[in-house]
């Protein structure tokens, strides 16, 4: 009942015309920011912060949050159309989204991304509304050993991302882990693999590697195959540009998976939406009946990660609003915004400012509907981009990649890195190395190493801390199970072979 009356109060705030306007402004801006690679929500919110001082805090919070979750909707667009991840959380969307586009199914891919985002985004808000305080306690019980186990689970997914050769996939993952070690070590303050470059003292930005390996690598290898240099097919007619009923059926589990995994990972201050998207993709593939088709453009391979990165938003607001603990760059700047407006985010924030909290929750329901209505009609429009002839499309992709990387850091050094990783991506394609394991290793590497070292410091050097804590033991067992999947399929293949031979 308390929740109901809170929600009523919230809608009273969120439905005020001025707040509706700011909510719309936020989600619209968020979508645009999401579509543009490089320019992310933290930078946008930081730039807009001075403007919000003229607004009342509820409107400002509603708008800034709109940018945050709106960007997650837009992030998939360039991933699907150009293989250029719009946000770090949309990297994994490239795997199946871009393949769908190559098969003339860009429309359904974009459409399912919007629908999954809407469903999971709404579930994320529901979670924020219903279980925020108890879940925040759960998040606190999660510490380094659990994070290590969670990331091991993520890294175990590498066996699912492998193409024909497991050895090549593992090698690519190792390179990813190696890149993740570059920079200044947090514990000993020594620089590792900096090659005498001060730019490398803080490591390599993951977005630079992802854009280089995926987008640049793709363009380079496509340019080589001259006869393939024709536009990607885009079917005419509106109906085939949207997901079919069959697509929706295929995604039933992906919607639930993305919603739940995204929210739970979001609640943990040490994980984040990129990890959430990889985990839900891995889970989707692990339980799928058509596992072998992942990476060739299956619709649930888009729905799961796109859902996960949206419900992550609701999850990430849980520790921020209930404990004052930010888990990512965006929530850190939202926290700074709250402080600058004169609030004190912490355990007492929600009880002392119910109107603000419930107004935000209500506005997120409204904002998600706005985003769906805004994004679905854009699908056919964006799909037209692929009609461009390649001599326009490829330079366009290159331009988008370069601008995207430059806006992240404003550094020419990163542009040089982009070229290096573009060449690496090209070589990996030529030699048939899968690029997804490299990205996975890079995403998880730094956090995993840190969590392991923190755990060992907590236990004074005993590895038993990893298995003596229940959550971490469960997660590690799951990781072992996933590692065994290829073995099962091999055994299964042998069995089928044997059966076939018996029959013959």
């Amino acid at each position, binding site marked *: 009942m308390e929740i109901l009356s809170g929600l009523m109060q919230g809608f009273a705030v969120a439905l005020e015309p001025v707040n509706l306007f700011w909510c719309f402004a936020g989600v619209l801006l968020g979508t645009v920011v999401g579509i543009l690679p490089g320019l992310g929500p*933290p*930078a946008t*919110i*930081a*730039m807009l*912060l*001075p403007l919000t*001082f003229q607004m009342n805090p509820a409107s400002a919070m509603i708008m800034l949050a709109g940018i945050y979750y709106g960007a997650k909707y837009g992030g998939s667009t360039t991933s699907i159309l150009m293989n250029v991840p719009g946000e770090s959380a949309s990297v994994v969307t490239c795997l199946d989204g871009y393949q769908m586009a190559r098969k003339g199914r860009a429309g359904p891919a974009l459409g399912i991304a919007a629908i999954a985002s809407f469903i999971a985004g709404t579930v994320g808000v529901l979670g924020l509304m219903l279980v925020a305080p108890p879940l925040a306690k759960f*998040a*606190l*019980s*999660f*510490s*380094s050993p659990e994070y290590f186990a969670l990331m091991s689970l993520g890294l175990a997914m590498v066996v699912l991302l492998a193409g024909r050769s497991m050895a090549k996939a593992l090698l690519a993952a190792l390179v990813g882990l190696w890149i993740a070690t570059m920079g*200044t070590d*947090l*514990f*000993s*303050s*020594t*620089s590792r693999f*900096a090659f*005498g*470059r*001060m*730019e*490398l*003292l*803080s490591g390599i930005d993951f977005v630079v590697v992802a854009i280089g390996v995926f987008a640049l690598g793709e363009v380079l290898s496509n340019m080589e195959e001259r006869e393939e240099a024709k536009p990607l097919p885009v079917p005419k007619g509106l109906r085939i540009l949207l997901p079919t009923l069959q697509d929706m059926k295929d995604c039933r589990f992906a919607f639930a998976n993305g919603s739940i995994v995204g929210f739970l990972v979001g609640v943990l*201050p*040490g994980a984040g939406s990129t990890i959430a998207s990889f985990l839900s993709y891995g889970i989707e593939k692990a339980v799928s009946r058509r596992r072998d088709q992942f990476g060739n453009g299956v619709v649930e391979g888009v729905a799961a990660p796109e859902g996960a990165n949206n419900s992550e938003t609701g999850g990430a607001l849980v*520790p921020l609003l209930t*404990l*004052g*603990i*930010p*888990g990512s*760059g*965006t929530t*850190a*700047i939202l*926290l*700074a915004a709250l*402080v*600058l407006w*004169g609030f*004190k*985010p*912490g*355990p*007492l*924030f929600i009880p002392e400012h119910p109107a603000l909290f419930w107004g935000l929750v209500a506005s997120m329901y409204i904002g998600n509907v706005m985003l769906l209505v805004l994004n679905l009609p854009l699908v056919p429009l964006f799909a037209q981009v692929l009609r461009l002839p390649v001599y326009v499309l490829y330079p366009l992709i290159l331009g988008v990649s370069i601008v995207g990387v430059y806006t992240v*850091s*404003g*550094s020419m050094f990163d542009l040089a890195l982009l070229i290096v990783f573009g060449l690496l991506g090209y070589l990996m394609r030529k030699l048939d190395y899968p690029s997804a394991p490299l990205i996975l290793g890079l995403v998880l590497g730094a956090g995993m190493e*840190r969590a392991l070292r*923190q755990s060992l*410091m*907590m236990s*004074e050097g005993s590895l038993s801390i990893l298995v003596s804590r229940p959550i971490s033991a469960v997660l590690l067992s799951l990781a072992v199970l996933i590692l065994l999947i290829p073995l099962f399929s091999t055994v299964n293949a042998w069995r089928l072979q044997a059966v076939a031979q018996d029959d013959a």
Partner: protein
Amino acid sequence: MKVQLQVIVLAAAALAVSPGAALAQGFKPTRPVELVVHTGPGGGSDVLARAIALMVEKEKLLPVRMQVVNKSGGQAAVAAAYLAEKKGDQNTIGLFTGVWLTTPLISAEAKVTLRDLTPVARLVLEPAVIAVKADSPHKTLAEFIEAAKKNPGQLKQSGGSSTSRDNVVRQLLQKSTGARWSFISFPGGGERIAALLGGHVNIMVIEPEEAGEHIRAGNMRVLAQVSETRLPKYPNVPTLKEAGFDVPVVPQVRGVVAPPGIPRENVEFWQDFFARLTRTAAWRKYIEENQFEDGYQNAADVTKFYDEFTDRMREILKDAGVKTVR
């Protein structure tokens, strides 16, 4: 033709020298001022920079706009190098913190030290408090130190990198008392607090404003404060010295630098500008709300501060087993 052009350019440059000095007397920024910070959006320096930019706008302290430029990366080395490249640029300044002094000490790759840039002013000192979880058995810092002595290496502190102020406070306390406890680094401030509140570590050094809400909610207790005098919002918490630990107070410091090779008039302009800024009501309110200490120092004093800070850091890092390169 080409030679002629060169002559004209040289003549123009020669002419520019003398009136330049005269003009700088009444130096006024001619284009939007760049305020360079070494963190991405949302980081400590970034938030302070944006607050300053906002005050400049509201109080009309400059004839032009001030825009924040994020040059993150390289543990402040990228931002320092960016300022060094802007040699002679009169419309660019940067916000420094202790990490600008520490990074060149430990990383050979970070070649620009604060001594290579033009000092302008020191602005704030950020005090800290030492906190434990509310249900912790340690009621005072002395009790914690005793417990650490009895079980060497078993108690844990969550904090930032090994060169952070958190670890410096620990090193100083360990050295003066002979107690030993371990230090676990977490990259984000949120994770450090979560580790303490979740009961995974025993103690942490935290900013007073951050701790305030957790104390009010009954989740945290403060044992001592890392400042020379008691903070107004912590009237009943002893300072380190009052708690019986006579160790130097290491503040988190924030100040302003300018590119190398700028005229003296330009330095004076910025010095005057920040002196005016720190006298505004908006600045006072900001300092008070964040529980910072007014640490204003002019350019000459800041240089002395650099040396003191660097020397002390070098010694502390040596004790902590961190290799220094300069």
